[in-house]
């Protein structure tokens, strides 16, 4: 036990615990002017052959390409052709339409859970555009954009969300915990952070085999606090692994803001410098900046120059999940006040500024994506929705625990079948 009275030390100041507090709570008027966002194009683009130290300045500022007039400016401009830009725009709009429909589906009781990526669509979508099709992602639950950008069927995603007959995961996983090897998308874990060092392990394997494919490890700002983050960074640094490590900093975990993950004292990109790994801090709502940074890091990794950590700075515009109501811990209007804007609107405005897009075409695109999502939903629901599931194929519960069903699971399977009153095999 502590001697209840701390020792008398007259000339010692009393210590006190600092507990980080977000700038605004419900009722406050959000004001992001403190952010000091650098002008687009103002940040240099170092050579990929350089050292971590070369990127130190980039870890505290922000790589931005789209300026206030919606033009792409500066050394980070990836100079993408209009078709590529339109493809990115379409994928972002699809993600938003998909999120919207599936959120409603959950509210309608068709499934148990859903998580949107609203306001963060540029990150997964533009990153996917910058990667090779064969590169492997170790995502979190907010990178549905990777699957959509790589053309994974929406119906497949929805069947997983409904845990229905069409779900290739056999109804075993929580909604949105997708997995698809063919689309370079590793199975999402419910346990935060685990995928981050796994990505480094995959990259190490690729290097061991003399392959040319790289791995991308994704993690949220809150989850960077987990030990897995340190494991991933340490292994990446030690073995110079061909990986891109991405922190999606949407400034919120569930109810706790990024200050509770250490963001009051340093950016997440700065963590990288401490490991001797280059770190880039990037405007995550600027699709061109997202693309350019991922391309820079991917080229480094593929050239056997090692890992890069990218912090995509964005804002989680909606609740953490369908189980969360953010008005309980932050101002309702905060999303509106967010200065880096809406990634869809910003890319749209850029295409318009290029003379490659206009409002009618955009409305048509939005309508088209919405129709496409609704059509997929109809198809998916043909396979059923969650409340009806779990009644047949009971025996499937016991498959895939091991490659073969051992005796004790076989016995339990028979018991379960007897219970379900369906002896039929």
């Amino acid at each position: 036990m502590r001697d209840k009275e701390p020792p008398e030390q007259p000339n010692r100041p009393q210590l006190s615990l600092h507990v980080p507090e977000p700038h605004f709570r419900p009722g406050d008027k959000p004001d992001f002017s403190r952010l000091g966002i650098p002008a687009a194009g103002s940040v240099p683009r170092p050579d990929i052959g350089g050292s971590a130290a070369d990127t130190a300045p980039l870890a505290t500022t922000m790589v931005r390409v789209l300026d206030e007039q919606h033009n792409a400016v500066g050394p980070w401009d990836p100079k993408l052709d209009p078709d590529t830009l339109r493809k990115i725009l379409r994928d972002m709009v699809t993600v938003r339409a998909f999120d919207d429909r599936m959120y409603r589906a959950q509210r309608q009781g068709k499934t148990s859970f859903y998580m949107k990526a609203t306001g963060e669509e540029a990150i997964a979508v533009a990153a996917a555009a910058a990667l090779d099709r064969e590169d492997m992602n170790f995502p979190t639950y907010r990178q549905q954009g990777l699957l959509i950008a790589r053309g994974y069927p929406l119906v497949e995603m929805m069947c997983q969300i409904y845990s229905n007959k069409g779900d290739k995961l056999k109804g075993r996983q929580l909604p949105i915990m997708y997995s698809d090897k063919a689309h370079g998308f590793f199975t999402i874990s419910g346990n935060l952070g685990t995928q981050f060092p796994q990505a480094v392990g995959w990259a190490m394997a690729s290097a061991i085999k003399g392959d040319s494919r790289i791995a991308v490890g994704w993690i949220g700002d809150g989850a960077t606090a987990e030990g897995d983050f340190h494991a991933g960074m340490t292994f990446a640094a030690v073995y110079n692994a061909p990986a891109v490590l991405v922190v999606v900093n949407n400034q919120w975990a569930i109810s706790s803001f990024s200050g509770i993950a250490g963001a009051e004292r340093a950016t997440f990109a700065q963590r990288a410098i401490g490991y001797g790994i280059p770190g880039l801090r990037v405007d995550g709502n600027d699709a061109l900046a997202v693309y350019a940074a991922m391309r820079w890091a991917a080229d480094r990794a593929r050239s056997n120059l090692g890992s890069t950590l990218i912090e995509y700075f964005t804002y989680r515009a909606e609740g953490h999940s369908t189980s969360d109501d953010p008005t309980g811990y932050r101002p309702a209007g905060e999303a509106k006040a967010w200065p880096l804007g809406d990634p869809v609107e910003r890319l749209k405005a850029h295409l318009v500024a290029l003379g490659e897009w206009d409002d009618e075409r955009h409305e048509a695109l939005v309508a088209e994506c919405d129709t496409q999502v609704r059509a997929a939903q109809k198809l998916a629901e043909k396979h059923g929705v969650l409340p009806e599931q779990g009644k047949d194929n009971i025996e499937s519960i016991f498959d895939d625990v091991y490659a073969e069903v051992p005796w004790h699971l076989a016995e339990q399977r028979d018991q379960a079948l007897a219970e379900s009153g369906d002896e039929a095999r």
Partner: protein
Amino acid sequence: MPAMNMIQALNDAHRVAMRGDPDVVVLGEDVGYFGGVFRVTEGLQKEFGKQRSFDSPINECGIVAAAVGMAAYGLKPVVEIQFADYIYPGYDQIVSEVAKIRYRTAGEWSMPMVIRAPYGGGIFGGQTHSQSPESLFTHIAGLKTVIPSTPHDAKGLLIAAIQDPDPVIFFEPKRIYNGPFDGYHDRPVKPWAKHPASEVFEGHYTVPIGKAAIVRKGAALTVLAYGTMVHVALAAVEERGIDAEVIDLRTLVPLDIMAIEQSVEKTGRCLVVHEAPKTSGFGAELVSLVQERCFYHLEAPVVRVTGWDTPYPHAYEWAYFPGPKRLKKALEKVMAD
């Protein structure tokens, strides 16, 4: 006496303990301003200030390690692990440090702390919001493991756990946070208000750690259960009209062996029930103790009713969960043998 659900009772237990002892502090993910994803710590920061109730980074290792340092200093930390499924990153700190520090220092340092975590299934939480990992802690010498099944016990046991000189793993059956559950998921949820055990004394009281509760007296067989399964078992017993004695263990370690022996010596038959997977679940320890100590009283093999030896399959929740059907079959078996 106010009627409370389990969340309110646990919240009240925190307040009573924190009012009574300035050394009690609360930390965990989202427990501060917001009051926890299940709202168990709601309002604590408002009443006791940010220095005594605050959010932690998402690092269960760090949460437990911080609690170790705080306990070493002389505080009594109460930490929340958001779901029992997420306790594993803190497992080394719990097993290698929290559990062993009193022993390895011959009592020079002790680790009074409570590690709370909602556990168990029945909420469509899938593989990582449904687990029952209690036997991974009952195997670890130096830890006490407590699992309440009613608001009254939840408050009394949590206060007892906070006052306990040793570390307590406190698993909360989240399926019954808001109301008891008889295992019929398709029936409307009953609120706690209708249940006698929702009557929670005001202020300070404790339910002793290490004492089971006989929640139904009977002579035909003994049912050993804890958490949500206490209510499922009671319902099944009533339905089957069997004169079973149902024991709510409430504490798994140290176990109330007297209550178990007395009952089984009387009934000669025993059923052991839990949500966790069967192999090496806590039921295995219960079966072993009963057959070691009551062998010559047993008229039939002790039977285990448990979850399957698989991860928790989202859509198949009700084929996985040990519900009324599984229990009734088992009751018949034990009585028939």
